[in-house]
């Protein structure tokens, strides 16, 4: 049974209303979780551009997230830069470093690309942990209270609507991007480089753009996280978090925006459930990742599409 357009719009409207009233119906903890989920959605959409759409196994996503967090926190905390400006600066810095990483690794592929970007991610975590003067090293860093557009963010409730608005803008921009010429170029590069070249796609440039954009998303997620969080510890910026985001997009379905969103919600919840058992997180994400890659390579979005026809998920 294909899902009709009115049904789609209807459920979107219901979801939107639910998202808007959510903080009025629930406790602070749920709102905190909701903020975190929205951050995960931005992270997952960003990694999906690189891995899902363009097919480049970059595994340094959390490094750019960390760059966004630290840049925003440092600029706002030590230099009194307004929060929105600090967030944009974090995005740009993450994007610039993503650009460089993409530019030096565009020739690598598959396992080589995965390994070198993994190494870059590890190196960045080491920087976060060791650069005491700037990041306060292994003890972690306090993030100042944010104030944006004239109102202070003192708790999760205050942040919620801003985080929600940013996430909605990011989702809509991503939908437009994926329908654009650039979005098609990403997929062309993923599916066949010789054909992409023969059809006028600058493969090298397209890969570098994918790296850059993916890093910009992660940097934005970091900056927004910094706007409602009061503390950042470098231990949370390790490979486990990259694997978590990778598992989100695989579970949701690589190359699907709806999939990235669903994956972020599902894995976000699982992560929260595992908060008491941090040592099991890595192994559980790993097992989920492998099971999905083996038995449901198209993820939840693919399963919905197969069940309800092609209009359901894209």
């Amino acid at each position, binding site marked *: 049974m294909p899902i009709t357009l009115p049904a789609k719009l209807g459920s979107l409207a219901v979801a939107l209303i639910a998202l808007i009233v959510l903080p009025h119906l629930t406790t602070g903890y749920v709102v905190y979780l909701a903020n975190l989920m929205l951050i995960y959605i931005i992270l997952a959409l960003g990694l999906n551009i690189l891995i899902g759409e363009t097919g480049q196994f970059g595994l340094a996503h959390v490094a750019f997230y960390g760059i966004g967090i630290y840049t925003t926190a440092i600029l706002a905390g030590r230099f009194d830069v307004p929060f929105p400006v600090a967030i944009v600066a974090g995005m740009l810095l993450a994007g610039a470093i993503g650009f460089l990483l993409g530019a030096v690794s565009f020739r690598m592929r598959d396992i080589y690309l995965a390994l070198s970007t993994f190494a870059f991610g590890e190196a960045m975590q080491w920087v976060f942990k060791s650069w005491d003067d700037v990041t306060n090293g292994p003890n972690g860093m306090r993030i100042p209270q944010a104030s944006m557009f004239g109102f202070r963010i003192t708790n999760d409730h205050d942040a919620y609507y801003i985080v929600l608005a940013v996430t909605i803008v990011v989702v809509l921009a991503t939908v437009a991007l994926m329908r654009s010429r650039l979005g098609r170029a990403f997929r062309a590069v993923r*599916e066949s480089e010789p054909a992409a*070249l*023969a*059809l006028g796609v600058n*493969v090298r440039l397209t890969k570098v753009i994918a790296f850059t954009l993916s890093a910009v998303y992660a940097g934005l997620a970091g900056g927004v996280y910094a706007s409602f969080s009061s503390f950042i510890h470098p231990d949370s910026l390790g490979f486990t978090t990259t694997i978590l985001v990778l598992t989100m997009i695989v579970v949701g379905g690589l190359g699907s925006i709806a999939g990235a969103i669903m994956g972020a919600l599902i894995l976000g919840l699982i992560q929260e459930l595992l908060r008491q058992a941090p040592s099991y997180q890595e192994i559980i994400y790993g097992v989920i990742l492998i099971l999905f890659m083996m038995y449901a390579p198209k993820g939840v979005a693919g399963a919905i599409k197969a069940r309800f026809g092609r209009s359901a998920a894209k």
Partner: protein
Amino acid sequence: MTVTPFLSIKNLTVKFGGLTAVNDFSMDVMPGSIHALIGPNGAGKSTVFNCISRYYQPVSGDILFQGTSLMQTPAHGTAIRGIARTFQNLELFNGISVVENVMVGLDAALKRDGKRLSPRQMRLEAEAILERTGLADYRNEQADALDFGHQKLLELSRALAVRPKLLLLDEPAAGLRNREIAALDRLLVDLVRKEGLTVILVEHVMQLVMSISDGITVLSFGQKIAEGLPAEVRQNQQVIEAYLGREGGAAA
């Protein structure tokens, strides 16, 4: 009066390690013609295509397109200059829909013209091309769900979407049924005679080659062994020995 060739390959030599795949090969293709490039498997035909589309770098020689060398053009620049191609071994964008495959071709044409279309207009244009190649019914399928013959037609559709001046077709009839080959024949004749396209055709289906080619060049082991009108080439003793003589096995 002499007509300048539309495409002129001059003394092209391509090596892979110790193997000389194409050896001092020259060929001229006239504007608005269908020029066949034939020869046994491994003769170097696809390698010539890969050089024209700038995917392979020859060790020596030059390729002139409309009088200017292609050697400074990057691989992603050939479509912008008006060259489109299909691949012998299929290089479709498998994981996306049939219509989106064609849209990537349209993107190249639009980039060349400096134009933009709305997603809706893009779709309509792509569907019009699929109508022409007989794939309209499959437009929403994923590309790799098509059978081999239809995938070949999709490669052709995608190349046509580039609105090229020069079209390189690498065994487009492989996997097609007789009725589909006849349709392909009509389509190519239409494109060349009515729309002024120039086509280089690598093909083993001799009935198609002989019926639509204006000129034929024969390659064997990287060397040109014959060239001329279809009737001349058909009579050539060397060609019969190298290639047509083993017609039965040549279609592999």
